[in-house]
């Protein structure tokens, strides 16, 4: 029983990291209808920003944290301007966006390797590594912090999207960009805004990831998992991304804890595919019959 509870805690904490990353994918997807594969690169740079602010410039933690988030916000917007806007202007099919995103992620990763170098960087210890202990269960301090930060960020995001005027504009654009534009919504601004919000979340995710694990140029590869989680939850749906992430985290944990760690990914992928076959739009995706 203790082990099961411990595994659930492990799963939740893995899931909450996936969730922070997945929400960024989903947010951009809901507006642009393509998977922004460069999101992983932005997360990685966010982690590096955090590292430099904290370890090199010795900023106080809160400053470094927000600095990193702002840094990746700027970066995400820049990325949109350079790699996606020209495509958007031409109504290019989603394939081109994806390739452009891939190019961007290759570029970002190798740029970091060429300039900063491939070595792993370690965040200075902000929180004690000593875990909380409840009975025989161990809960990491950092995990608790990540869990709370994710929850707060996601709650703020939901508030922003659901209850503010700008949020309404975002939802309208997500629903139908052309009509929204006709209704006087500046879709270009909305897209910038969405990338900015996505970038901000990426920065937060990057710093937390860096604190929990470490910083290295290939963090982007980890984010594939969060992308899978987003698809699983239903692309374009924020609650879907969160739920998908938590389920994926728990699934992975339970499979390696009780079944086979060798075949973990195989089993979790197969399960995901089965679920997608049964429900092709993901868990929380909006059902839609194609309009004719």
């Amino acid at each position, binding site marked *: 029983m203790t082990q099961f509870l411990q595994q659930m805690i492990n799963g939740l904490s893995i899931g909450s990291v996936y969730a922070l990353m997945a929400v960024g994918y989903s947010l951009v997807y809901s507006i642009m209808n393509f998977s922004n594969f460069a999101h992983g690169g932005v997360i990685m740079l966010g982690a590096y920003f955090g590292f430099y602010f904290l370890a090199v410039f010795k900023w106080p933690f809160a400053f470094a944290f927000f600095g990193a988030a702002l840094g990746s916000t700027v970066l995400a917007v820049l990325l949109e301007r350079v790699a996606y806007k020209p495509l958007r202007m031409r109504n290019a099919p989603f*394939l081109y966006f994806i390739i452009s995103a891939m*190019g961007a992620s290759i570029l970002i990763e190798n*740029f970091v390797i060429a300039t900063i170098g491939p070595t792993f960087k370690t965040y200075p210890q902000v929180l004690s590594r000593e875990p909380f202990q409840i009975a025989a269960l161990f809960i990491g301090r950092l995990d608790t912090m990540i869990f709370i930060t994710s929850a707060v960020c996601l709650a703020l995001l939901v508030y922003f999207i659901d209850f503010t005027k700008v949020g309404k504009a975002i939802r309208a654009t997500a629903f139908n960009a052309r009509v929204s534009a006709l209704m006087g919504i500046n879709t270009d601004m909305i897209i910038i805004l969405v990338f900015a919000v996505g970038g901000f979340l990426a920065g937060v995710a990057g710093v937390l990831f860096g604190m929990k694990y470490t910083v290295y140029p290939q963090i982007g590869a980890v984010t594939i998992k969060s992308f899978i989680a987003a698809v699983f939850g239903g692309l374009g749906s924020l609650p879907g991304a969160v739920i998908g992430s938590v389920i994926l985290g728990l699934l992975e944990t339970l499979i390696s804890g009780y079944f086979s760690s060798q*075949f973990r990914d195989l089993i979790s992928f197969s399960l995901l595919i089965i679920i997608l076959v049964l429900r092709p739009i993901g868990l929380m995706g909006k059902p839609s019959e194609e309009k004719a």
Partner: protein
Amino acid sequence: MDWFYVKGILILSGINLMAVLGLSLLTGFTGLFSFGHAGFMAIGAYAAAFIGVNLGLPLIVSLLAGGLVAGIISLFIGRLTLKLKGDYFCIATLGFGEAIRLVLDNVQVFGGARGWPGIPIRIDLWNVVLINLAGIAFMISLVNSRHGRNMIAIREEELAAKTIGIDTFKYKMISLFTSAVYAGIAGGLVGYYTGFLQPKMFGMTKSTELTIIVIFGGIGSVSGSVLGALLLTALPELLRAFALWRLVAYGVAVIFIMISRPEGLMGGKEITFKGILRAIGFGHKHSKAREV
């Protein structure tokens, strides 16, 4: 440049080209995006090597058998996932590619992650070229028949394709099957060229690379794929002198081509003999290349 080295690049381009031709049918002509093609290459590689080494069959038979095994497995995958839309299909193929690798990592008969050395080396430039010529000829015949046109119709407008009586699911299956066979043969070439197989060789980077080549060469163009495979295999080689910066340059090149010439090098056009004649002065410039 030294011929021995150039020969190596040409062989490698040829191997890539085989996989790219297949993916070009799936992505370029049918409009389906796969992130798991390296998985089919892996299946083909191991199957072809197994058949060649254990049954002592000649090269061409082993390669075709490898391709066929990849094709048959693709039918199972397709049956499950081809009904999924856009990014959901992407994710399913991505999951499949990773899953195949994980299985191979664990199959100790083939050496697991440690790899399988000692496969006889049977590939030289001449047989790669012959196999590729056959592959190109087959592909051109296919896309210029009603079957190819039906696939293009699916890419252009799936709903309309259905209403003119095209069994879109069936044609997606044919397209996936054919492209998996090509990828499988390409995988077989890898094994017989390097004499060594390791699941690591067929990671997501490989799948991404293939997709980038297809798009770079131009959607819906066989000659574009040929050109793309030759150029993009050679490009990193030419950039070798720049060491760390070459992949940065590669990323920039990919973004640049997407935003400045998104239709790829050939943009749905084909180089034909007639076209070449016209280009050198026997016709007006509009008919330089033929529409497919």
